[in-house]
């Protein structure tokens, strides 16, 4: 083990115990908000893979969140399955639907793809709202159970939060591994230049589908955790606006950076809860902040930090240069301008 530990991985492993113990003092609402942040981070992580790494603009992540949540709710409430089994099925279902939806991604790009996925989102929402026999329609599905796993009852707020945290850790590590595998590099290559990637022998078809499907599977996994977290689901949280907000989340955090989804989800899902005291104005404040953020730094919050770091190192270099100038000047003589 002479290899240096990757700093990204180090942050993940350090953050885990902090997040494990820190919210212990919170009341149930606080725990719910923190758990919601993690769940949405998972969904945003999936979209970050699709958008940030593979460069496919998707407006369907909210729909996949819905597919995962409804699949889990239906399987646990109506069929009486356990959560782990439902989780796997929900994630697998989202993966499969993601592959199907990925086919348009092979034909069209950019805004066209955004509109195809937008159409998909609306259709999923309509099905959730109209097919009452399956989804409960506007009344939704209630009493989604929180499971007992390995003899631990996850019914309480803290226990379920820690369960969500563990799943988040696993999925984060999966994502990290994925991005550092040849697959992740292939995704990047396709985003940067699809033609060049193809000429290097990367199967664009397969990798585009895969990026889409894996991103969708993360959305489904997040939905599968969302359902037992809230214990009640109706179509409203999975409407088109949910997909918009998830897209804003990824861009606000920093599309294509590993921790961008976590920062963005904090911004999009915890900030509104903190601003709840302002009454109906919190969405206005949130939208205004996002607007200013995107204008100031299109690479997101983490891009802002990167830029600040660049700026500082440039300044440092400038001061060093300035300090070195007298000695350089003495060596070259004061009249160097006329010499050249």
């Amino acid at each position, binding site marked *: 083990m002479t290899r240096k530990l990757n700093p990204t991985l180090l942050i993940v492993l350090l953050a885990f115990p902090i997040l494990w113990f820190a919210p212990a003092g919170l009341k149930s609402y606080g725990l719910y908000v923190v758990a919601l942040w993690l769940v949405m981070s998972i969904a945003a992580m999936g979209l970050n893979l699709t958008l940030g790494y593979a460069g496919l*603009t998707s407006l369907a992540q909210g729909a996949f969140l819905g597919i995962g949540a409804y699949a889990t709710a239906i399987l646990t409430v109506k069929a009486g399955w356990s959560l782990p089994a439902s989780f796997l099925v929900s994630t697998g279902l989202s993966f499969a639907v993601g592959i199907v939806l990925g086919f*348009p991604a092979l*034909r*069209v790009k*950019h*805004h*066209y793809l*955004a*509109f*195809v996925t*937008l*159409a998909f989102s*609306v*259709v999923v929402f*309509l099905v959730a*709202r*109209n097919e009452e026999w399956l989804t409960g329609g506007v009344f939704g599905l209630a009493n989604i159970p929180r499971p007992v796993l390995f003899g631990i009852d996850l019914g309480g707020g803290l226990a379920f939060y820690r369960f969500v945290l563990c799943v988040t850790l696993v999925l984060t590590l999966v994502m990290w591994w994925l991005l550092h595998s040849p697959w992740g590099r292939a995704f990047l290559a396709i985003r940067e230049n699809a*033609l060049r990637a193809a000429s290097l022998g990367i199967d664009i078809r397969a990798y585009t589908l895969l990026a889409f499907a894996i991103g969708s599977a993360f959305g489904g996994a997040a939905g599968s955790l969302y359902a037992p977290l809230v214990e009640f689901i109706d179509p409203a949280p999975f409407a*088109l*606006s949910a997909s*918009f907000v998830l*897209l*804003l989340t990824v*861009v606000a955090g920093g599309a294509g950076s590993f921790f961008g989804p976590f920062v963005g989800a904090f911004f999009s899902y915890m900030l509104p809860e903190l601003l709840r005291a302002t009454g*109906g*104005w919190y*969405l*206005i404040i*949130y*939208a*205004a902040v*996002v*607007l200013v953020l*995107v*204008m100031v730094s*299109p690479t997101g919050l983490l891009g802002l930090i990167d830029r600040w770091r660049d700026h500082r190192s440039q300044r440092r270099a400038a001061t060093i240069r300035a300090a070195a100038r007298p000695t350089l000047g003495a060596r070259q003589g004061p009249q160097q301008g006329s010499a050249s």
Partner: protein
Amino acid sequence: MELPRPRPRRILGQPLTLPMLRMGPFPLPGREREKNIRNADMDQFLQLIVAGLATGAIYALAAIGFTLVWQTSQTINFAQGEFVMLPAILVLAASHVGLPMWLAFVVGTVGFVLLFGFGFKRFLVEPMQRHGVLPLAIATMALSVLIKEAAKNGFSAEAQQFPSLVPEGTLSMLGAAVSVRDLAIFVVAVAAILGLQAFITHTRTGRTMQATAQNPTVARILGVPVQRMILLTFLINAALALVASYLISPVYLAKFSNGEHIGLAAFIAAIVGGFNQIRGALAGGFLIGLIDNLAAAYVSSAYRTAVPLVVLVVVILVKPEGLLGRKEERTV
């Protein structure tokens, strides 16, 4: 998602299932009752067509503005629907402050064009243009949330009456009762579009604008003031949204959430017709308006929103450049 629309009439207590299939070019000889149903169907069909053309004209106005702005500055304006929603709200807000109605209209109109024609271009699009398409699109998404929530909190969450310039009532046309408002909407919107078309093709400024839309770089080399032309398209976009807003608000009432449906319909219209053609957006608008109204009556009111979307997906997959669009060249 949906705007309130009167449900289609049911004739003789029978639900109208797929009358399209039953409607041949010639009425087949049959019992008298059958024939009556067929005539009633025909009436309803005509009403739906006129209503569809009226809605379509509104969509076309929004879609043309959307296309113009896209052509000259590569802006995907996700707030386009909110642009159509807002002017009516501004007028109502101005009149609530105590201004007389005509002054409220002036304030709403001028305020809107300044804010979302000039201001939108100058303070949002211009600084962000160099970052590419996506950040700007995201910014307009945030702007749409901002406008919508501001209208909801700053003005009213309830639907409000909006004064109509056209009297209510019906007109007999080919034996069918047709709403005067629908006809008026259609006529005014088409007049606005024809005026715009004439401006673009027959005046020097219009042709310069077209040149900017087709190739900004070459236009700049030929001495076209490109930024001023882009500004002009933003002003035209605001004006079209204004017309659409004043036309549609008396029918659908002024409400903060109206923009969602109109915006979506405008995108669909623009893409279905052809993202890079004004006449494409025009045709797309009418097509989507018709499909929207016919689907609500004949397919399913629960899934009416989905029908135009299915059309959209089919068009994107089969002919991504749109029905009337031309292919954009790819550069390697």
